[in-house]
Each structure stands twice: as structure tokens, then as C-alpha cells.
């Protein structure tokens, strides 16, 4: 087995045994039950509303998991001192970074897929219609977006303390969610440096909005063309590759402090 796969497997075991995912799954189930029992704006019990809320929570929980899981991987190794026992084996820093990346990305994607399944299951149980082809596309693109979020967390954590890396990754991803899609609109009202800054942000930050297929699924617009899905996924994979490279570059020459557990 390739060494980075062994390291990725350890990330899976850690996340599963820390029980963060179960807590979020239970929380999602509880929130969906509350949504279905309350009658907000006369929408109580509407299956489409439950699916809408369920997928929104899947994005929020996936975001939280991706940033927190990825940002703590490398700093935890140094804090525990286990980075020394790992790198004293024929494990390169590249193996370590790739293993951590693959492990955190795959486990967060799997957890998010389970959130989608729960939301879709609840919707179907309430008699709602779920287009499974569109749902599959939504899960796939969401998984790619999670890879970008994990990559950001990992890159920042290659040089920063885990908490600082997570905080920075939350800020950057939130800005990418909230500011980037509206940047062209803001740019028309700005001139000079502010417009240039917005332009830079628009091109530099990831465009998470292109990975978000919630509306298609909730309003039953049917699946998107697979070529479009493929192009968006290719954009996401290119970002992931860049972030992996940045993380490895930052970690390659890092000098570790000696840990005292």
C-alpha cells in the first residue's frame, strides 16, 4: 500500500473515533425534525422546504468539518510529537502532506454524502420527489468544493498553529462564499484601488458558487449537462492541485519545535 494511503487511513480512523461526524449527523436529523414540525410562513411539513434546509445544513456542516479536520492535521502531528516518529520512517514530507490531504478530503466528503442521504431520505419519506441524478451531481460537485476547503485549511496549517489556520480558512472560505459571487456587481460601483482589490479577490478566491447545485435539486430542475459538471469538477481539481502544491511547499522545509506532551 502506498504510504500516503496508510496515513490517509489513520485520518479516517481519527475522525470516526472522535465522533464529530455522528454529532453533526444527529444535529442535522434533529434540525430537520424541528423544521418539519414547525409551521414557519405556512411551510411546515413541506418536503421541499425540508430538503432545502437539509442541503443548506449539509453545506454548513461540510464547511465546518472540512476546515476543522484539515487545519488540525499537520499542527496536531507536531504538537503530539508524532511527526518525528512518522518522518523517522521512510515517509517523505510529500507523503505526509498528501496522506493528510487525501484522508481529510475523503472522510469529509463521505460525511457530507451521508448528510445528503439523510436530507434526501427525510424528503422522500415525507412524499417529496428527489431527482437522484441531480442529487448525485450535487454530491460530486460538493465533494470537489470540500477538497478546495480542505486544501486551504491544510495549506494554512503547514505554517500556522491549528487554530490560527482554521480561523484564517474560515475567513477566506466565508469571503469566497459571500463576496466573490457579488464582486462584479460591487466592482461597477468602485474605482481605482478598491475596484482593483475586488478584481484581485474575484480572480484569486475560489468560486464556490459554481459547485452549489442545491437549487437544481430542491426545485427539481433536473440534472445539469455532464460536460458542465465535468468542467466545474476540473476547475475544482485544478484548485486542489495548486493548494496541495502550496501546502507541500510550505511544509517541505518546516523546522519542527520539540514537543513536550
Amino acid at each position: 500500500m502506498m504510504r500516503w494511503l496508510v496515513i490517509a487511513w489513520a485520518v479516517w480512523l481519527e475522525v470516526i473515533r472522535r465522533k464529530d461526524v455522528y454529532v453533526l449527523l444527529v444535529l442535522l436529523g434533529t434540525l430537520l425534525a424541528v423544521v418539519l414540525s414547525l409551521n414557519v410562513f405556512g411551510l411546515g411539513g413541506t418536503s421541499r422546504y425540508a430538503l432545502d434546509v437539509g442541503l443548506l445544513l449539509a453545506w454548513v456542516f461540510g464547511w465546518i468539518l472540512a476546515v476543522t479536520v484539515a487545519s488540525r492535521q499537520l499542527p496536531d502531528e507536531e504538537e503530539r510529537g508524532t511527526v518525528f516518529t512518522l518522518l523517522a520512517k521512510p515517509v517523505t514530507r510529500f507523503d505526509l502532506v498528501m496522506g493528510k490531504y487525501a484522508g481529510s478530503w475523503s472522510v469529509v466528503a463521505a460525511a457530507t454524502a451521508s448528510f445528503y442521504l439523510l436530507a434526501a431520505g427525510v424528503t422522500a419519506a415525507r412524499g417529496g420527489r428527489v431527482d437522484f441524478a441531480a442529487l448525485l451531481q450535487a454530491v460530486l460537485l460538493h465533494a470537489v468544493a470540500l477538497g478546495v476547503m480542505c486544501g486551504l485549511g491544510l495549506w494554512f496549517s503547514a505554517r500556522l498553529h491549528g487554530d490560527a489556520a482554521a480561523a484564517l480558512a474560515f475567513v477566506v472560505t466565508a469571503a469566497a462564499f459571500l463576496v466573490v459571487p457579488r464582486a462584479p456587481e460591487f466592482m461597477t460601483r468602485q474605482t481605482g484601488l478598491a475596484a482593483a482589490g475586488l478584481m484581485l479577490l474575484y480572480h484569486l478566491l475560489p468560486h464556490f458558487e459554481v459547485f452549489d447545485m442545491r437549487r437544481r435539486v430542491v426545485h427539481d430542475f433536473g440534472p445539469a449537462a455532464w460536460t458542465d459538471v465535468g468542467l466545474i469538477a476540473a476547475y475544482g481539481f485544478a484548485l486542489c492541485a495548486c493548494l496541495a502544491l502550496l501546502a507541500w511547499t510550505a511544509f517541505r522545509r518546516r523546522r519542527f519545535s520539540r514537543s513536550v506532551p
Partner: protein
Amino acid sequence: MVPAIEMRGVRVEYRGGGGVVRALDGLDLTVQTGHVFGFLGPNGAGKTTAMHVLLGFIEPAAGEARLLGEDARRAASRERIGYLPENPDAYRFLTGRELLAFSGRLFRMRGRALRDRVARVLDLVGLDEAAAARRIATYSRGMMQRICLGQALVNDPDIVILDEPTNGLDPFARMAFREIIRGLRARGKTVFFSSHELSEVELVCDRLAIIAGGRLVTEGAASGLVPEGERLERHFMRVVEAARERKA
């Protein structure tokens, strides 16, 4: 015969405290295969830094380090190495057995060979079935030290590098540790270890080296290094103080 460990003119510098701190200052050291080599020095002498250079964690500013003739910076040089760091810790979410299997897989061991080796190592470090099945989070300090030593031995290494391995261990655990070291020596393995426990070092080492201020102060056979009528502790303090005076 290729030496197990070779360091030539190794210099390591850190930036800190408004200047450059020289952690290793042209360290030369050779450890022949099959020896149990005690690496002594006061706090801050550069023992751990030297080990980190050997393991490729730190790239020296000058000089070179070799393990069994291979450049220590290359990951492949660590195929036949086992390392126990100072104050070791492990993945606490794993059981003892899982940790050893994880470590073995990093050496591309698998299947029956891996299972047999894990069982052998558990026996070697004195952890029974019940302990091996428990999460490491529940281990005592002594058990943690044993499982971490286990992960260092899982690949049946030719060179075992141990950084302060007896720190905080009770007398029983120390005795067990000595037995493991003797077992390794009997099988022709090279053991390179640092310790502040001079009595411990006297009991198990064939050769000793003392470093101070990042330089080798003295090196020789354990039986011949200390002058007749002097104890290792006294000799250690004398040579370290003399080295400090020379440097001052």
C-alpha cells in the same frame, strides 16, 4: 565496513535571541555497526539536534550525515532505522496493536508477515493481549514508552536511535528496557542513545561520546573512557566544564 552512523563537520545554526545560535559546531562522530553507543551531554549540548540531523528532520548548514553509508537526508536511508523520540507520544485514538500495524504498513509490510511481526514486537516490549487491544489514550506513561519503542522496532531495524528513552520510567521499566537493549546487541543491532541517566548508560553501553556546545569533547570505549578510580558522573562533569572553559 561501512559505519552505522557517520557525521562529518556537521554545523547547525538557529536564528534566535537576536543572533545566530550554533547548535552543532562541526560535529564529527562515527558509530560502528553492532555497538551500543551512549551519546551524552548536558542540556542544550546538541544531542537531540544531532539525532534530528541523522533522521533528516534538520538540514545542516555544513557537513554531512550518513546512515549505513546513505545520505541521511534521503527517505530511503530510514528503511533500516528505528527511532524513539524524547517524551514520545502516539496516535491515542488507535489501540497498541493498530499503532504497530500502522507503523509496519509504512515500511510496506502487510498480511501475515505484518501480523507476526506485530505479535513479536508486542512480546518484545512486554505488552500483553489485553494491553494491545486497548486504546493508547488509556495507557500509563510506562506503557506509552513501551508501545513507542515497539513502533521503533517494528521494521526490525539495523540502527535504533533512542532519545532519552528511560526518562520518567520506574526501576522495573528501566530494567526491562535494559534487557531489550541487550537483546538488540546480541542480534548485532546498533543502538545509539542519549541519556542523562549516567548509571543507565554505564550498564548497557560499549562506547560513549560526550558532547558540549555542539562539539565532540571525548569519545571511546565505555571501559576505557573513564580514568581508573573516577566515576562516570565525575568524569562527565569534569570534561564538560573543561570544554565550557575552553569555549569561554
